[in-house]
């Protein structure tokens, strides 16, 4: 069958050009690689080669023609035995460009099919609101025995259980083995699992994070520990460019099923370079899942889920919480799904939304407010990607007032995102603007008095609640 030769584009932005010169004439036989014509734009000239072999049937555009649109047929190439009449038939049959064969999500987005349903949700792959009904099932069956455990022990149990369960899971990081963990999360694990699976690294975050991602590509399930997330900035290129994006870039062929974990946020008096909360940074990245637990039960159940998740998961712990004790269900295999918030306290008057150590301030504020007759509902998001929007919506519909609480910087915070989402999706339910309580817009100071001022406090939350309840 005759083939159309189309006006080529010299660059991705070129729309039209000049057919400067034909180097073949009708009736010439050409083979792949022969130069057919010279094409020009205002920026460049290109020799245009044949890719098929055949006989030049008809030159459709004359030499010297300007403004030839990209993809316009400029000549017909005849296969062996064809004559010029075949050429004109083919030309009219393929006037329409071929239909795009894109898959579901892309073409939907382009046509805006989902736009009416849930505008904010449709933009985000993991945050899609699948059901308007929040999942309010208890995290463990009523009547289950619980044991008291620190967050540190809970994390250690989760790692150990998953390492028992899956041989491909291994832990890697600075001082995780012989030193027993800089914060003792991995205490005893080297003795139990050996150096093949508890891997001490040099101080080479960029290198070992990349090695972790490569190992995940290769079929392992790495847990990469950062001594703190401040040092993950050395490695953030691999977290985002290598781990988060590869599934997408490979068209779904391969990704990085792994966990990056370690303490995040301020410890105590360690100054600006060691005291940053990265929750909002990582939560901004499609391709990552982001977890920030508050209780020991959540730390355990969510870390087990994170290790099993087929995606890169950022697991943000907190040094100050490591030693706090909570009830943890005594179950052989306890997991908590991602995207399911926990209503830590039921209430009618205002919704406090928080996560991680912010929960400590939110709960303390709720206690103080109860004393003043204000009944606060406190929601622990637990995962920031995905976020449990149905739970938020349900609560806003009830209380009509929201205050968010987090330790991070105020600009482009998780609270900012929640405010926007609530405004877009629950505007009619709001009786007051949403207020974001955050850390102050300053690097963390070292001095004890200034550090106290820089951090978000329960009193600031109480103050914000008074504003949104007009009391």
């Amino acid at each position, binding site marked *: 069958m005759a083939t159309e030769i189309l006006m080529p584009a010299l660059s991705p932005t070129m729309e039209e050009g000049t057919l400067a010169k034909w180097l073949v004439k009708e009736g010439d036989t050409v083979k792949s690689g022969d130069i057919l014509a010279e094409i020009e734009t205002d920026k460049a000239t290109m020799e245009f080669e044949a890719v098929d072999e055949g006989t030049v049937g008809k030159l459709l555009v004359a030499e010297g023609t300007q403004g030839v649109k990209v993809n316009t047929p400029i000549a017909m190439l005849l296969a062996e035995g064809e004559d010029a009449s075949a050429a004109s038939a083919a030309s009219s049959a393929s006037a329409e460009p071929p239909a795009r064969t894109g898959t579901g999500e892309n073409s939907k987005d382009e046509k805006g099919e989902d736009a009416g349903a849930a505008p904010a949700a449709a933009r985000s792959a993991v945050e899609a609101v699948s059901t308007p009904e929040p999942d309010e099932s208890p995290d463990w069956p009523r009547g289950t025995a619980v044991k008291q455990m620190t967050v540190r022990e809970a994390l250690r149990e989760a790692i150990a259980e998953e390492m028992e369960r899956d041989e491909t899971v291994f832990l890697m990081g*600075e*001082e995780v083995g*012989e*030193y*027993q963990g*800089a914060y003792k999360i991995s205490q005893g694990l080297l003795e139990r699992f050996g150096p093949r699976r508890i891997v*001490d690294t*040099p*101080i*080479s*975050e*960029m*290198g070992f994070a990349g090695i972790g991602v490569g190992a995940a590509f290769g079929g392992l399930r790495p847990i990469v520990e950062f001594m703190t997330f*401040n*040092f993950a*900035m*050395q490695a953030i290129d691999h977290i985002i460019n290598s781990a988060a994006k590869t599934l997408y870039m490979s068209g779904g062929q391969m990704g990085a099923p792994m966990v990056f974990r370690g303490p995040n946020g301020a*410890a*105590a*008096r*360690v*100054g*600006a*370079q*060691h005291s940053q909360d990265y929750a909002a940074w990582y939560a901004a990245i499609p391709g990552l899942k982001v977890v920030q637990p508050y209780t020991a039960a959540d730390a355990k159940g969510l870390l087990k889920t994170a290790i099993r998740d087929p995606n890169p998961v950022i697991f943000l712990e907190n040094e100050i919480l490591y030693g706090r004790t909570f009830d943890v269900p005594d179950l052989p295999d306890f997991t908590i799904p991602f995207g399911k918030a926990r209503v830590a306290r039921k209430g009618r008057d205002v919704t406090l939304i928080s996560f991680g150590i912010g929960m400590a301030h939110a709960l303390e504020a709720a206690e103080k407010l109860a004393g003043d007759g204000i009944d606060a509902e406190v929601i622990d998001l637990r995962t920031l990607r995905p976020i449990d929007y149905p739970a938020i919506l349900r609560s806003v519909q009830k209380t009509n007032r929201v205050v968010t609480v987090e330790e991070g910087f105020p600009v482009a915070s998780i609270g900012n995102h929640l405010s926007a989402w609530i405004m877009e999706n629950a505007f009619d339910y709001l009786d007051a603007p949403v207020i974001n309580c955050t850390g*102050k*817009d*300053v*690097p963390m*100071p*070292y*001095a*004890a*008095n*200034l550090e106290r*001022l*820089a951090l978000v406090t329960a009193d600031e939350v109480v103050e914000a609640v008074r504003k949104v309840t007009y009391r």
Partner: protein
Amino acid sequence: MARSPARPAQAAAPAPTASANTANVSRDDLLKYYRDMLLIRRFEEKAGQLYGMGLIGGFCHLYIGQEAVVVGLEAAAKEGDKRITSYRDHGHMLACGMEARGVMAELTGREGGYSRGKGGSMHMFSKEKHFYGGHGIVGAQVPLGAGLAFSDKYKGNDNVTFTYFGDGASNQGQVYETYNMAELWDLPVIFVIENNQYAMGTSMKRSTKSTTLYGRGEAFGIPGEQVDGMDVLAVKAAGDKAVAHCRAGKGPYILEMMTYRYRGHSMSDPAKYRTREEVQKMRDERDAIEHVRQLLLQGKHATEDDLKAIDKEIKDIVNDSADFARESPEPAESELWTDIYADADPAPQTA
């Protein structure tokens, strides 16, 4: 390429005696090294004490044991030279002439501190003394130091920058990116690897198969050598050589200082990664201050009484700094909001 025989600090060296190479050292120089090293030691001991009393918070990394490194190198520096280091920075600040009061008050987070209480132990600076910090991210000071050298080369002066980092930091990738550019551009930077043989609890053996760290410069064409960092005279001599190389416009130089920290990595340290005997042996046999003390006494440069007088003088400085650091008030609350942005662009310098 310069090479001197490796003399690792842990090598079973004989107790230092006056027979060490003191030919070119004056009595005044020796006394100055003694005084400067002793000031660091006593200051750090006091800092440890204040930490124990809760007056210092967060991380606090003491320099005890490594004093000869900074004191020897400062002796090779001239006015205008720059220095930059990690969080283990108190010794560097005292050695380059920063006031004990201002350093101690920063440790307690008070207004009188070098960063007005906002930086803390790991983050202190002095423009006046050309001390560029105090950096908490392991390895980050290495390109920064090369950048300081870049600025001097750009301006066309003959200053050099002493860029200090640890054996652990040597495994950060940015160190090698920096080596490459520093040699490529002949930057006047001395890379001082303070090889105290441990990065927190990781001994050098457990983090690399390289036998030396200075040798890694070879791949980039940077000369270097290993130096007995417990011997202030050896440090000074090596410093002179490195400085001459840099000032002559020949590019960077690497000094791998074999040294040892007596205390834990920071104030909390499980101390399980090395034996008590190992530490004691270093203290007994290789202590840098004791070394100079013996040189002074055996060379009859000073009497026990002279040295006692110095001890007392140092003790007074340190106690005074501690008193100052306790009495200095906390920074004003308004300080929370200052120093986030500089006010206005300075006028451009004419080309």
